[in-house]
């Protein structure tokens, strides 16, 4: 198998991990919406943590993307 083909397959495999990130981000915002729906007064406090949580989960997505790029272009 040529190196080019192996690189493409490797990059494709590397981004399978993004499925977990999709579930994670959905979880974060689902919890946010549920808690604000139960207690609208908590929006400010919960909102801050929601965005921090989202950024932390998205970081994992970017780690996977980084590995894919490293395999593809490294």
């Amino acid at each position, binding site marked *: 198998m040529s190196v080019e083909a192996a690189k493409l397959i490797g990059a494709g495999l590397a981004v399978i991990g993004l499925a977990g990130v999709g579930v994670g981000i959905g979880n974060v915002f689902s919890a946010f919406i549920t808690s604000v729906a139960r207690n609208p007064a908590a929006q400010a406090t919960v909102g801050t943590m929601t*965005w921090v949580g*989202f*950024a*932390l989960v998205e*970081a994992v997505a*970017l780690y996977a993307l*980084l590995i894919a*790029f490293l395999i593809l272009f490294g």
Partner: protein
Amino acid sequence: MASPLQQFEIKPIAPIEVGGVDISFTNSSLFMVIVITAVTLFLVLGMRKRAMVPGRWQSMAELSYEFIAGLIRENVGHEGRAYFPFVFTLFMFILFANIIGLIPYSFTVTSHIIVTFALAAVVFLGVTVIAILKHGVKFFGFFLPPGAPIYLAPLMVPIEVLSYLARPVTLALRLFANMMAGHTLLKVIAGFVVLLGLFGIAPLAVLVALFLLELIVAILQAYVFAILTCIYLHDALHLH
């Protein structure tokens, strides 16, 4: 066609070499100077009027101050006030660097791992030194959370140490990966716009939406860096 990774190339503008070490003034250095100039002008010119009822520019300058001051008050507490200049500088530098990087034909300073790693290393080393200076030997008690039974210590302590040592790595990697991946994605979609000619209107619409996402990510990543710095400072000052 140019590779989407070509935008990250470092090009020396004024080559300088000292004893075999290359310390040229590069496009990265130029944009760091531009970022610092922009932040300084934003704050100094914004506060020039010193009106009691702030105008628009003064409002923005005061808002940025209040934002970080509030962040430190909530996450670090009273003793965090001494670290306000550091966190404020960090936040404004990363924020302006991320946003200025979105201008077409410019260079994103924070899209290089060495820059973000330098920032994260300063935060990590600073926070660790602060903790050791304040708590002395008791600092190592940080790795066994209170209330955990002592027989779990051989399992917990290595895990806690590892996750503590992972902090500068994740802090740097998060900002770097967000900036690099975002900009690479923009370039790849932009390549499709040129490639499709007349039908390039579809990827162009996607590009506009992506630009908005990148702007949100730029601001969010600066905020996350600042708030994580505050959380690590809280850990250092209060040891849980």
